Each structure stands twice: as C-alpha cells, then as structure tokens.
C-alpha cells in the first residue's frame, strides 16, 4: 500500500526544498515548481478520497518516533478531516495560480507557501498530539514570514501582532496536550486512543477545555480574541489572505471538533451554553463590524468572524443536544460550513485582490459601475457575495441551514443569530452597489479585465460554490459517516 497520506503531506515540502536547492531559479521556474507541487498534492488528496474512508480513521500510517514518550508519527483521515484536506489542496493551487504575476523574491515566496501547505495538511491528518502541535506551530511561522515579507504597507506590525497573538493562543494548546497526555493511562499522545477513551474528568477536564477553547478561539477567531485578524488580513498579500481565511481559520474549528468535542466531551457539554453565547455574539459582532467597513478586504475579513461564529455555535449545539439527530445535523452543518467558507471567502479575497491590483485601492467609495468596465470580475464578485450571504443554491446555504436547524432543536433563542444573515445580506448588497453599479468614475474606464491566470484561479472555486450549493450530498455523505460515529 502506497503511503498516500504522507506523500500528500510532504509533497509541498519537497517542492519547497527543490526551490531552496535551486537558489538561482527564475521567477518562472519557481512558479512552475510551486504549481507542480501543489497540483500533485491536490491529486494525491483526490487519490485519498478515491480510496475511500469508512467513517473511522482510515488510511492510517504509523511510524515510531519517540516511543519512550508514546509519541509517534501517526497520520490518517476521516470524514471530518478529508473535506478540509481537499479544501486545502484546492485553495493552495488557486492561491499559487493567482500569484503568477508576482515577481519579487518568488523562490522564497513560493517555498513559504509550500511549507505552509505541508503544515496545514499535517494539522488535518495528524493523529498524534505532538505531531499535531508541530504542524500547528509551523503554520504560524510560515504565515508570519509571508505577511512580513510580501504584505502591504504596515506589514511588519501586522505580522508581529499575528505571530505574538497566535503564539499566545497556541501555547494553551500545549498545556492542554500535556494535560491529556498526563491524564491518559498509559501515557500516550495517540489521538485515536484519547478519542476512544477521553482520559480526563472533573476540574482537570474543565481546565483543559478552557485551555483548548482559548487556543481555538484565537485561531477561529471568536470575539474577543479576533483582534489580530483584520490587521493580518489587510496587510497580507492576497494569496496569503486566501490561505489565512480559507485554511488557517479552519484549524481552529477543526481543533474544536477534534479536541474539545472528541477528547473532553463531558466538559464541553457543560460548557456548551457559554460557548454558544460567545459564538452568537461573535457572529453578530462580525456582521455588524463588517457592515461598518468601507475597505472591501476588511469587510470580507470581518464576515469571516461572522461565518466562523456559526461553526462554533454548531459545535456547541452538537455537544449540548440530547437527541442524536440534532447533534449530527449541527455537526454536519459545521463541517460543511468550514468547506463552504473556505471556498467562498477564498474566492472573495482573490477577487478583492484582483481589484486592488488594478486600482491600488480597496475603498468601495472610490469605485462605481465597474460591472460595465470589468464584467467578468463584477459578476464573479456578485456570485461570490451572494454565496457568502447564504443564498439558496450556493455553498453556504446547505451548511447554514443545517446549523440553524440544529440550533433550533436546542436553543431556539440562539436563532437571534439569524440577524447576522440579514446584516451580511445588507452589507454585500451595499458593497456590490457601491463598487459595481452606478456611474463609473473616469479614472477606472481603462481598467484592464481579468487575465487568464486570474480566471483560472477563481473560476474553479465558483464552480465548487455552485456544485456544493445545488448538490451537497457528495460531500455530506463523506462528512456524515464520521459525524454519525462522533455523535452516537
């Protein structure tokens, strides 16, 4: 059996090492290496999907690493991680396609993206706490250098905030990992063992959960731990924002499911109402703040806080609900929402980036009527915006519908969160109107249309948006097989 999961995880790293070895590579060659590595990675991810998963951890690969401590190299996929693995594969190809026009220190840029891809995939497939933490931290380092090296005006400060803040967030995770390790008998870092028999109880479990919640709330991000996000997004290069919103935020909610829900289930059940309050508040807060933005990129960044709030709410519902069907509806919705948000927000950041490349501004007040100048960009943006506000037939609808359905089954009052949908609808319509409708200011009349690589990077995401919106079963079946095991 070919160790396809490991091959997939380390393919991008191999690409990065090739780039390090070819120090004098031209920008063209560097881009080519990046596309080949990320393309093959996507193929490997599809191969893993074709091999199939049965609900539990499948295609597990295990190699001894630090046997004296019970830590090993253990990777595998299930219905929660595989959709996120596929999402990662797709988004990195899109991000690197978009980056083709980049010509500043391309070798290092592409190498860092490939390193980041290995780290993200590693987090999703790791079945060992130490391995998980290793990949988790490497994402921070790689993202820090991407923002600091290729960001916009105030990048140093933004990168610093991002690094310090998320490190502060990830160290509680280390404590929680140690607590889980020391609580298990015999001591092990094997996530499968810890999920099969959650080791902690009582106060230790509660404190461990608190550490986990802080760690994942920073990453997701949930109010009040979201303050790093707007700065990082605004200053990051476009491809960085795509990966940040599309993949890195999912690490937080993925961890919430994998750790909090699966390894400290009882503690999360008792804490679920509190988590839900934070989630609802965070979702509404994100929507309201997004409404106040005139910078398109900041606006999209804040809608992420809103959408990720729904995911956290769904996990809380899944922990608290007494009926199994409610639990699984909510959790299905949560995982699907992660994928949908990754694709839709990835597309939105790409489109805003294309706009910024052409206009050197992201202020919607400066635009107008662009639909007539760059119709393809305009219609793409309108479609992605409609998807983001939850229009039926597009990717967010089936996910959010299930989340709200589950929420209704536990805390009907929490449906105040639906207000968020109204607000996002309002803010997207306002953004579309200000940017793409009305009269065109003279200076934009000559704005060039989308290039081929632009279209190739964003069109597949929009197709996926439509496919998931109309026929989500192919993804939901995969997700549900595992969710059923988690919730029963």
């Amino acid at each position, binding site marked *: 059996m070919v160790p396809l999961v490991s091959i997939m995880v380390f393919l991008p790293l191999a690409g990065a090492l090739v780039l390090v070895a070819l120090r004098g590579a031209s920008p063209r060659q560097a881009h080519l290496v990046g596309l080949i590595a990320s393309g093959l990675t996507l193929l490997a991810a599809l191969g893993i999907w074709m091999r199939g998963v049965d609900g539990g951890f499948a295609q597990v690969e295990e190699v001894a690493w630090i046997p004296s401590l019970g830590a090993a190299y253990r990777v595998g996929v299930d219905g929660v991680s595989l959709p996120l693995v596929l999402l990662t594969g797709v988004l990195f190809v899109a991000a690197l396609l978009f980056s083709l026009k980049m010509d500043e220190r391309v070798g290092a840029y592409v190498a860092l993206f490939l390193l980041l891809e290995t780290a993200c995939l590693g987090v999703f497939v790791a079945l060992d706490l130490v391995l998980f933490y290793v990949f988790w931290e490497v994402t921070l380092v790689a993202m820090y250098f991407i923002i600091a090296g290729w960001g916009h005006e105030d990048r*140093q400060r933004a990168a610093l905030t991002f690094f310090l803040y998320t490190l*502060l967030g990830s160290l509680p995770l*280390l404590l929680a990992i140690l607590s889980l390790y020391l609580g298990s008998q015999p001591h092990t870092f094997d996530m499968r063992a810890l999920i099969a028999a959650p080791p902690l109880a009582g106060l230790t479990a509660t404190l461990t959960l608190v550490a986990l919640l802080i760690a994942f709330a920073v990453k997701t991000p949930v109010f009040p731990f979201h303050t790093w996000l707007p700065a990082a997004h605004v200053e990051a290069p476009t491809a960085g924002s795509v990966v940040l919103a599309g993949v890195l935020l999912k690490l937080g909610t993925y961890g919430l499911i994998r750790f909090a829900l699966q390894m400290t289930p009882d503690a999360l059940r008792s804490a679920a109402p509190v988590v839900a309050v934070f989630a609802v508040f965070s979702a509404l807060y994100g929507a309201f703040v997004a409404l106040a933005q005139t910078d398109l990129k900041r606006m999209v960044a804040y809608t992420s806080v809103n959408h990720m709030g729904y995911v956290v709410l769904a996990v809380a519902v899944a922990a608290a609900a007494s009926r199994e069907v409610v639990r699984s509806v909510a959790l299905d919705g949560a995982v699907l929402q992660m994928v949908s948000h990754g694709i839709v927000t990835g597309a939105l950041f790409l489109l805003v980036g294309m706009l910024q490349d052409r206009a050197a501004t992201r202020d919607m007040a400066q635009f107008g009527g662009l639909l007539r100048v760059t119709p393809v960009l305009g219609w793409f943006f309108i479609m992605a915006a409609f998807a983001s506000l939850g229009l039926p037939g597009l990717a967010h609808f089936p996910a959010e519908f299930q989340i709200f359905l589950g929420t209704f089954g536990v805390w009907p009052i929490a449906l105040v969160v639906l207000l968020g949908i109204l607000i996002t609808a309002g803010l997207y319509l306002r953004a579309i109107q200000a940017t793409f409708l009305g009269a065109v200011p003279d200076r934009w009349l000559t704005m060039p249309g989308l290039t081929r690589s632009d279209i190739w990077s964003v069109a597949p995401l929009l197709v996926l948006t439509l496919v998931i919106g109309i026929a989500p079963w192919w993804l939901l079946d995969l997700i549900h097989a595992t969710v059923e095991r988690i919730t029963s």
Partner: protein
Amino acid sequence: MPETSMAHDLGLLLPEIALLLTAIAALTAGMLRRDGWALPVTLVGLAIAFGLSVPLVGTQTSIFEGTFRVDALSIWAKLILLPATALVAVLALPEVRGTDREATVFSLLSFTTLGALALAGAGDLMFLVLGLLLSGFGAFALVAYPRTDRATEAAMKYFVFGVVSGAVMTYGLTFWFGATGSTLLSDAQPLGDARLAGMASLLAVLVGLGYKAGLAPFHFWAPDAYEGAPLAVAAYLSVVTKIGAIFGLAQVAISLAPVGVGWRPAVATVAIISMTFGNLAALRQINVVRLLAYSSIAQAGYFLVGLVGAGTSLLALRSLIVFAAAYGAMNIGIFAVVAQAGRDIDAFAGLGRSRPWIGASAVIFLLSLVGVPPLAGFFGKLLLFGAAIDVGYTWLAVAAIVNSVLSLAVYLRIIVPMYQQPGIERPVSVEPTFVWSSALVLTIGLGLGAQVLIGGIL
C-alpha cells in the same frame, strides 16, 4: 551498595580523567611553544573523553563513597558539555590565534568544563564547592584573557560576585553540615526537622549555584561579563557553566525531594523571577550580546520549571537533559552567528538577504529558543512543562508559557531587521561557519530525533 574498590571508581571516572589530561596536554603544548597544537590536542582529548562517556549511558551508581554520582545527569552532562566545549574552542580560535595565550585559553576551557562536570555529578557538598571553584577560577581567567579594559572590568565583576556568592554558599552549607552531621547530599533527611538550617542550606545552594547558572536575582554579573568577554567565552558561560550549575542544583533537588524543606516553591519562585526578568530586560537591549545574556537568564529559568519536578516526576530528568542538549546547540549556534554578523543589533539588518543560510540558521536558533516545533528547544520545553504539571505546578507551566510568548517578541527584534532591507555583502570566516552549521544540524536533528536523547535516559 556502591562498590568501593579504587580501581572500579576510577574506571567510572575515566572521562573526567581524560579531560584533565587534555587540559594538561594543551598547557604543555603552550609551554613547548607549540601553541598551534593546543586546539587539535584539545579537540582530540574532548573526543576521547566523549568516547569514554558513551559506554556509561545507563549507569546509575555513585563512587568514592557516594560523593560523586555517575547517573543520568552526570553522564549526559559529559555527552552534552564536551561537544559544547569543542564547539566553543573552535569558535574561540580566530580570536586567540597567534596570541601568546592561545594554549592557555584552550587549557582553561577544559579545566572549566571539568568544574562544570564536578557540579553535574555532585553527590556531596564538597563537590559542589569544588565544582564552583574549579569552574569559577577558570572562567574568570577566560573572561579576562584579551587584557582589554572591558574584559578586565567584566572579569572583575564576575570575580567579585563569584567570591561573594561562593562565601554565602559556603557559610550556608555549614548549617547543612551542622544539621545533618554529614556532607553527603543523600544524608539530607535531618534537614526536614531543622527548619532554620533547612532554609539556610536551601538559600546557600540557590545563591551559589544560582550565581553560576545566571539565574535572577543572582545574575547581576552576567550582562556585563558577557558583553566584555570575548564572544566565544560568552557563549561558553551561557552554556557550559550554566548547565553544570543547573545539573548540580538538580542533584541537590533529587536528594531533597523526600525531605521536603520547601525547595519546590523556592525553585519555582526563582524560575518565575528569572524568566520574567530575563525576557523583559532583553526586550530593551540594542546590543545582541547583552540581549542574549538576558535571554540566557530567562532560559535558565525554564530549566528550573522542569527542575521543580526533580525526584518525583519521571519527566524531570529527561526534560533537563533534553533541554540542556537543545539549549547548548541553539545558544552556541546563535553566538556563532553573532560572531559572523556583529554585536550590534543593526548589524543584523539585511543579513537574511545577503547571507540566506546564515539568516535562516539564525531564525532557526531563535525560534528553537522560543520553543517552536519541530526544533530541539520545543521538545525540551514540552518535557519541562510536562514535569512541572506532573507535580502539580501547572501555574508555573502557565507562567513559562506566557514567558515564551514574551521571548518571541525579544527574538523577533533580531529576526525582523534581517529581512527588512537588502543587506550588505560581508565576508564569512571558516570557524563560525563550522560552529553554526554544526549547531544547526544538532538543533534540527535533536528535534526530529529526540528519541535518541529521551530513549537513552533512564
């Protein structure tokens, strides 16, 4: 019962004997006016001592009637400090080559390491005093050897602090001896009943070894001494004597664990003060050597986080040894980068662009010092925190974690300018390159291959 035959005991002491002979051989080379031979002789001697230490791994005994321990701490101290001394010796070569003190410096390095090893294996109060003196006098001379004003001032400060803390320690240890009637650490049981003597002994050990380890609040000599001393000596003080003293403290802690004189809260307090003060002070430095001096005060504090678990948690010894190996590699590595780049923080501007390999190594050393996986420092810290949590000191682990974030802010002050602007071309020399590349291999290798260390302990 430990065997008492002299030959058997000396057999277990072979690495130390080899080290002593190495020091004498280097000195002899100098006396024969063959200074150029001193470094090769030293490296060969260190390699022999290292080779003699390897078969000892797994031994758990004591020799000379319990006064010197041949246990995990003392054996791994050799396996870590001997290569560290070799790297420092190579780093020192460009600074001493051709001077009239060339052979002396290499000889003193071996002597001082011998003192650090005496501390790391101390099973008796006399060995603590002996180790402190042996490593102290060698180190004073090493700091002072360039005969510049700065070096002389640095050595003077180091010396005065050393003499005072040594006196405090010796005075405090008389209480220990008075209460127990024995100088053996393993006879510490009566200290549990003698409150005052227990506290005095504890204070004595903390002051004496805390000074040597550069722990706050006994650190005042360190920034000035590091700054004034030759760079290789600063690297040496920050690694070899520090680890020796911390292992010595661990030997005391292991003996005190069943006695309970309240050493855990005391050690935890020093750990917090050291970490927090070290990192906060490092945040304000503009001289990289001073920055690293304060950072090494903080790193000494991390050691104590794991030391709190000594004698109770299985993770404690492993954590100290793994972190010591990691810290030795990454700290010598970053000092070697400083030797290449310059002592001023502005000298690092653009280094990452003009010299990508040096830049990348510096980033890796610094991130390893923060504790970013999969580098060696991470596994050390993972075990240190685990040991503290294991004995119920979760709050100490939390404090250490907050400090790790603080330390990232410190190290980013070096990392950020490296990539901010295009760099100027600068010459590279052989010795620092050799040292930082060896340290780089170790920092990455000991991370991914942590099993080699962890599996070899106990």
